[in-house]
């Protein structure tokens, strides 16, 4: 257990001692603020899906969730760089001589990323909801704000695991963007049942179902479970690759 604590302390130190993390967090907050402002204005003009209305208005938490479509990109970049940055800068071999247990190293990275994306994601959710309140009124509720933190923590673990499988930062980011951003609308647009069902199984769409609390096509809890499934699967695949392949 003390080995695990030491591995987490080392990864924590590494995370905060490069500039990447600061850029990513600033970008996340800027994207969230800009997105929330934009969606709040859309909501005020009645330019949003009527299904999002509660008592005739769009709740601030929902505006933050909509704005997350942009802000999550910065969180994805941060999380995947924690892993792939080790390969692109050639430090992976050194890191593995510090912590030779592959599973322990990946778990330490996942814990650190999840902690940071949970806290920063919750803060971002609060910022987005507050901007919505300032522009169009309403009250911030804790549920969606904390939900954003939970979703981003799971997405972070997913990105770290995928980075361990793919190793390269560019290929990892492309696959992440495909799965979370690009594929869902492509699959949903034709309105063909089987394609929509596939889209509903992707992490970004499942996260949205969870965060918006809608019960169509499945309960919000199932959405959370699906995102968790992606995170666990990526972690296990990443651990397998780290153990199997030479550094």
């Amino acid at each position, binding site marked *: 257990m003390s080995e695990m604590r030491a591995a987490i302390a080392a990864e924590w130190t590494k995370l905060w001692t490069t500039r990447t993390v600061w850029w990513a967090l600033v970008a996340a907050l800027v994207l969230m603020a800009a997105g929330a402002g934009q969606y709040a204005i859309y909501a005020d003009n009645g330019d949003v899906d009527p299904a999002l209305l509660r008592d005739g208005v769009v709740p601030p938490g929902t505006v933050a969730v909509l704005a997350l479509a942009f802000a999550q990109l910065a969180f994805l970049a941060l999380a995947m760089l924690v892993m792939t940055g080790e390969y692109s800068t*050639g430090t992976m071999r050194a890191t593995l001589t510090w912590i030779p247990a592959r599973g322990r190293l990946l778990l330490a990275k996942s814990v650190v990323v999840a902690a940071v994306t949970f806290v920063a994601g919750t803060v971002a959710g609060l910022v987005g909801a507050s901007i919505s309140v300032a522009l169009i009124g309403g009250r911030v509720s804790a549920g969606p704000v904390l939900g954003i933190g939970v979703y981003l923590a799971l997405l972070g673990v997913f990105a770290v695991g995928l980075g361990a499988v793919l190793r390269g930062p560019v290929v990892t980011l492309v696959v992440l963007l495909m799965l979370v951003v690009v594929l869902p609308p492509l699959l949903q647009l034709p309105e063909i049942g089987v394609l929509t069902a596939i889209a509903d199984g992707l992490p970004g769409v499942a996260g949205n179902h969870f965060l918006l609390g809608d019960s169509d096509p499945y309960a919000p809890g199932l959405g959370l479970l699906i995102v968790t499934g992606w995170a666990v699967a990526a972690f296990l695949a990443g651990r397998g690759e780290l153990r199997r392949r030479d*550094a």
Partner: protein
Amino acid sequence: MLITLERLTKTFGSTVAVDGLDLEVRPGRVTGFLGPNGAGKSTTLRMILGLDRPTSGRALLDGRPYAAYSWPLRKIGAVLEAKAAHPGRSGRNHLLAMARSNAIPASRVDVVLEQVGIAGAARKRTGTYSLGMGQRLGLAGALLGDPPVLVLDEPVNGLDPDGVRWIRELMRSLAAEGRTVFVSSHLLSEMQVTADHLVVIGHGRLVADAPLDEIVAGHASLEDAYYSLTSVR
């Protein structure tokens, strides 16, 4: 602490990089590790450090593989590449993270920074370091856990003459303290004045494993001895 290789073998596809290497590297002396480019030196060192998985055979430290140690940096210090630190991180923060990973007191960081002579640049990002400073930072990392075994891959690359002399004396004093020092190099003249014992490999196989005097005996220099060893086969 002993480094023991038992029938250590590594193949990449159809290429045999390391071919059934049996070897024991002993404490209290500097053991030089020689061989032409592509002879399998770096692959062997990577297998000792648990980075590459042997195709067959084992590499052990006092009977256990590297990955079996909870705090490996306290057992074996390694310099594998000149720059193993993130270019955006300061040398001090690099060593601090390294210390935390193995529960080594943070006070050791300043000790080793002084010891390798880069305390003045410790707060600069390592991307700004020269090759020689990168080597010194790597050595600081190797010494951080005060380990009984040191494995150094081409440690004099990029060092100026003062640096070369400094590292020679450092290796000799580490061995004199009873540590196991295993150092690969291309520089035969440097090995001749640094090593007590030599291991020579070619095409992944052991060519010689003998005291320096014995290998040089009958030749004008280590260089002559090396060429007769590596070309006769």
